[in-house]
């Protein structure tokens, strides 16, 4: 007969694993949030923080957040999938956002979007094979005066024409190459 005892309370281990899955800074932020009487209300803020660091939300990190904030994982996943801003897949080095707001649309943003998809060989929400570019459509960047606009990381390119797309992509591809060399 086996004499091994089953440990019933593994809470300490689970919490340690959760802390290890995140950076100390994020863990400290979560602990700060738990001081509020409405702890759960901080979930979206915490997810922003996690995505801000890792670029996306992995299953492991969402689990960790659930443990540390003491909310069900199903609720974390529910929130993460509801809001457009959260990504569940890693993104490419450069995030390309095409504004499809009304002002950009009437000024021909669709043609820019088509050209970008054609040049990169991917659709919206996808990342190129070399992990260099991710493409997404955004709703109004609030720079309607420059319509149609494309945003790469946080740099806005206004008054775009389909013809300018290849050169723009080329510029970033070259930048990445030079960074690699250096």
């Amino acid at each position, binding site marked *: 007969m086996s004499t091994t005892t089953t440990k019933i309370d593994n809470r300490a281990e689970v919490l340690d694993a959760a802390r290890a899955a995140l950076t100390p800074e994020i863990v400290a932020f979560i602990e700060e949030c738990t001081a509020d009487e409405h702890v759960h209300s901080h979930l979206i803020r915490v997810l922003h923080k996690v995505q801000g660091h890792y670029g996306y939300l992995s299953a492991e990190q969402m689990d960790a957040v659930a443990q540390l904030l003491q909310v069900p994982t199903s609720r974390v996943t529910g929130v993460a999938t509801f809001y457009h801003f959260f990504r569940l897949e890693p993104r490419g080095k450069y995030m390309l956002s095409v504004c499809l*707001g009304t002002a950009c649309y009437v000024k021909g943003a669709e043609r820019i979007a088509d050209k970008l998809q054609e040049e990169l060989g991917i659709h919206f929400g996808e990342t190129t094979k070399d992990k260099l570019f991710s493409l997404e459509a955004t709703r109004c960047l609030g720079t*309607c*005066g420059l319509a149609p606009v494309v945003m790469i990381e946080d740099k806005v390119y206004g008054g775009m024409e389909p013809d300018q797309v290849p050169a723009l992509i080329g510029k970033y591809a070259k930048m990445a190459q030079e960074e690699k060399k250096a």
Partner: protein
Amino acid sequence: MNTTVLNTYQELVNAAKARLAEACPENTIRIQVGSATCENAAGALEVWQEFEKSIRTSGRKDILLHRTGCTGRCSREPIVGIFVPGKMPVKYQQVDRDMAHQIFMHHVLGGELMGEQVLDRPDTAPDYQVLVCDAQHCGCCINGSAVETFRQQLAAAELDAKKVQLIPTGCLGFCSMPRAEHTTSVHIRPDNIVYNVKSVEDVARIVKEHLVEGRVVESLVSNETSINQGFFNLYGDVVFFNRQKRIALRNAGVINPESLDEYIQYSGFKALNDVLGKGDPDWVVDQVTLSQLRGRGGGGFPTGLKWKLTRQNVKDECYIICNADEGDPGAFMDRSMLESDPFSVIEGMIIAGYAVGATRGFFYVRAEYPLAIKRIEHAIGVCRKNGLLGKNILGSDYSLDLEIRLGAGAFVCGEETALIHSIEGERGQPRIRPPFPAQSGLWGKPTCINNVETFANIPALFVFGADWFRKVGTEKSGGTKVFALAGKINHTGLVEVPMGATIREVVYNIGGGVAKGKSLKGVQTGGPAGGIIPVSLIDTPIDYDTLGKMGSIMGSGGMIVLDEDDCMVDVAKFFITFCQDESCGKCTPCREGTKRMLEILERITAGKGEAGDIEKLERLAMLVKNSSLCGLGKAAPNPVLSTIKHFRAEYEAHIHDKRCVSRKCKALIKYEVDADKCVGCTMCARNCPVDCISGTRKEPHLIDQGKCIKCGRCFEVCRFDAVNRL
């Protein structure tokens, strides 16, 4: 009156004044650079750095670099202002690094105007500009027209436009001031003097003494400072600005959004001082009710009533929320206000919090607005440090603190119950009302939610009086509305006009008309939940009620100008795509209805429309409108219904004749080479991505319609207009 409050406020004012006088002594030359998301995107940061460098190398101590938010003149950004004491304020447009250097060398150091680059390229650089109020309350007091009287007097004194320029403007904002009956306000630049004029003799004196001899006519000078004096002094010469009436945007482009001192200099926190000094929340609610301010987020619910209802339900805790989840594509006024004048929104929130009895306040901001978030964070920090937020505000017994909560890109979160769920950390789905948030909102407590623009109006409403605010607008709706003017318009930007202004005034007089000389087809208002107003109705005065009657809504104030090249079926499809994508999925009519409507519209624009499609669309649209749970679903069909109502013929042409009159829908157009015009240069054939154009050099070419993908490349590259789009 609570004297502690009054004294605390007076100390703040004195300290601000002293610090400003030290930082910017008299005779300082000011270089003003805009800095908001849009300005920065257009290159304002590089321009700022260039000026910093130039000032440093020049070694001059009397030149100050001044940061402001944005004025809302988007298509001309970055805008740089050069303010030399005693000289006319000058603004330069679309400045880049090189130009910044040139402006510094020639204008700031050399005193030489660079006429070509000045905003809107005025023809003259006169010694004086006379801005005469031409609004209906004011402008007709002297001999029927103050402007005409000035024109005659200037001609008599032989002052031509090169010396004195006469500029009729919209309301200068003095109508509310205690002053003699039947007077007209006149603003003289660059001296920044405002006169109250009531007779031909007064006009003659101003022309002779001030404009010819250079002496201020003291007896006619207005003792008051109007809400727009600072703004008009900087921007009054530009038509885009001087036909506007700025209340919510009063400080945008005038003050540094990160400087509490500058905000205080322009009557900042005076309203809070009055409110807390008086110490009567019911009075505050009454004033807002009297002003007829209605919610600027789109619904148009009377703000005073909302505050009253919330106040009635408070037992212990109560919350105040600022809805800054500006999700409408094409609307950017909230972002601009938060980036250009955050203190004003905070002051409005504290006053609202006091009126309803709020114990905690929240800013719910889109995560897509990083600069706005940064500016509010900064402003909240500064307010805490100066006793304007936190315990015992301004020494009163009222305490309130504000926190920021970020959205995460869900359009439906603009709906108040969805927004509350989002702050609670849940999926942002709406719920059935009642209970309304005023009864049971955040964490089950009474909650008052107002939009950014509503809060931005509050301080001005108290400084200048509820009665004044009410008079600015129409019978049922007080104040102004900010519109984000974009699309096929010459001057894209933010436009604030009194309620009751017409679309013609906004599009033609302020916006400079339709771009590229095309003709106006309609104006889309209210974002994805709004509708399209055809050109035949652009003379209707606009407020919440009239827009509703035309099948549109005020919404948050997006105004997209559409020209002859825009297909109305395609535009309806665009908005339904948006709503279908943003539908949260909770209720069936919205989730399924928008999808089915989209399918029908896709069919029509693909040339596969069937007889009866329009009726099917109408039936579905009414069903979704009547049975959806929240405002998103209830309003989603508006673009479809309003386009069918006003542009039914376009739908019919798509369905029956398989024709798109605007030549926008790809499936319904074809490209053909005009053999008479084609010279056989082979340009089109070389650019065709599918090689469907054949022909030999110097012979007319031919497009193979079977293979053509209708990309329009040939049409764009032909230099002889030989490719026709049919």
